[in-house]
């Protein structure tokens, strides 16, 4: 998931009887599968939680361009390069759709950007890991985008209209991303001995960080319970993680690669794989900004923002000049 550890009201879910009439009507509409639109009445907690969640999701898309952008100039063929460029361009678009959805809740994109650049808001832990070889482009598409899709497909049914509509568009494009990743993995896995080793190494390094993307178990979390009651979170983290493992293990087998987990085992009773939990201490450490690439990522985003300042201001000044000339001519 691209949004992790999102805090909600922290107060636990109210029953319908505890709600005042306005809130009760709101909740009943959500329970009946209705959509909430920007101008509809909504509890302040719903609005704030959504801004945090959509904002973090948007930031993840934007920061997520960096590990892949790293390989655009070094893609092995012109075709691979064009495909990777198209993918990274999609991520920018995803960020844009999501910022626009967040903006309908009363926060501007520039404000959200400032919150990212000052470290007040977070982005997904996964983008703090380095992409060391070309096989990592395969692993990122296959595993990271695969994990993102697990979460984003159900979010197409989320209760907030603009968020759901953004997610429909994103899901269509993510499917291209995951397939291009798997295509790279197939090529590497069927290549030379050195290429196979590179593919296995990429899987070894990205497996546990991908499992962390779903966040720690939230079965007991009051925040998640509230978000699920509001239908801005559709499944528990454990449900999605299990689904991801069950889907990915056969794909790894197809590639002839080995999931780096000695406890991975099919559980006949559950109809699912048993697997090892990732190292949650590492996860919290990365979230605190101590990931291998955390500082690089923030520096790159800050630099892009600072270096782009003259463009933003220049275009605005030009637009204002043209507008005043048009007005003078009328």
């Amino acid at each position, binding site marked *: 998931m691209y949004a992790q550890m999102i805090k909600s009201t922290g107060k636990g879910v109210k029953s319908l009887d505890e709600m005042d009439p306005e809130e009760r009507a709101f909740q009943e509409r959500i329970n009946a599968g209705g959509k909430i*639109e*920007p101008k509809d009445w909504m509890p302040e907690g719903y609005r704030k939680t959504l801004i945090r969640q959509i904002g973090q999701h948007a930031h993840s898309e934007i920061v997520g361009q960096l590990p892949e952008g790293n390989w655009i100039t070094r893609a092995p063929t012109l075709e691979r390069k064009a495909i990777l460029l198209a993918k990274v361009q999609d991520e920018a678009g995803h960020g844009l759709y999501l910022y*626009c959805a967040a*903006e309908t809740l*009363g*926060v501007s994109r520039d404000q959200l950007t400032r919150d990212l650049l000052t470290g007040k808001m977070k982005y997904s832990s996964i983008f703090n890991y380095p992409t060391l070889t070309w096989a990592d482009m395969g692993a990122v598409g296959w595993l990271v985008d695969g994990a993102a899709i697990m979460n984003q497909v159900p979010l197409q049914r989320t209760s907030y209209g603009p968020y759901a509509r953004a997610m429909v568009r994103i899901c269509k494009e993510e499917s291209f991303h995951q397939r291009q990743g798997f295509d790279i993995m197939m090529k590497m896995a069927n290549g030379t001995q050195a290429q196979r080793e590179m593919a296995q190494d990429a899987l070894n390094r990205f497996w546990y960080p991908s499992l962390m993307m779903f966040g720690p178990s939230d079965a007991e979390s009051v925040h998640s319970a509230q978000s699920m009651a509001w239908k801005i979170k559709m499944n528990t983290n454990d449900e999605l993680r299990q689904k991801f493992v069950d889907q990915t293990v056969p794909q790894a087998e197809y590639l002839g690669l080995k999931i780096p987990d000695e406890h991975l085992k099919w559980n006949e009773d559950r109809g699912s794989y048993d697997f090892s939990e990732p190292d949650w201490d590492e996860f919290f450490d990365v979230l605190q900004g101590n990931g291998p690439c955390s500082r690089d990522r923030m520096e790159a985003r800050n630099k892009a923002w600072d270096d782009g300042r003259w463009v*933003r*201001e220049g275009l605005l000044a030009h637009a204002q000049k043209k507008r005043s000339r048009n007005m003078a001519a009328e």
Partner: protein
Amino acid sequence: MSSPESGSYDATEAAPHGKPRAIEWPLWEVFIRGQHGLSHRHVGSLHAADAQSAIKNARDVYTRRNEGVSIWVVEASAIAASRPEEKGPLYDPSNDKVYRHPTFFDIPDDVGAM
């Protein structure tokens, strides 16, 4: 995805939705007509300094996969929208006028297709 129905930005930097603050680009709503002759449809929104760059950005963001053959952009702050609380007065009156639907009338089978 934005919506011209949005409320204003938060109180700390109060400005109507989509209206640019000091150094922010205004918000534009984007409408695209698909290949098959249908009407332009709202697809989302974006920020741009002026209409020309809004169209360019819309092309880059919203038509990367042959989604359309024509783009309209309009500044979000220029769109007037009905309010949710007007829902009753606006739409309820049509609910009891079932005769507006062709299925209201029983036409004998003998008459043939109509």
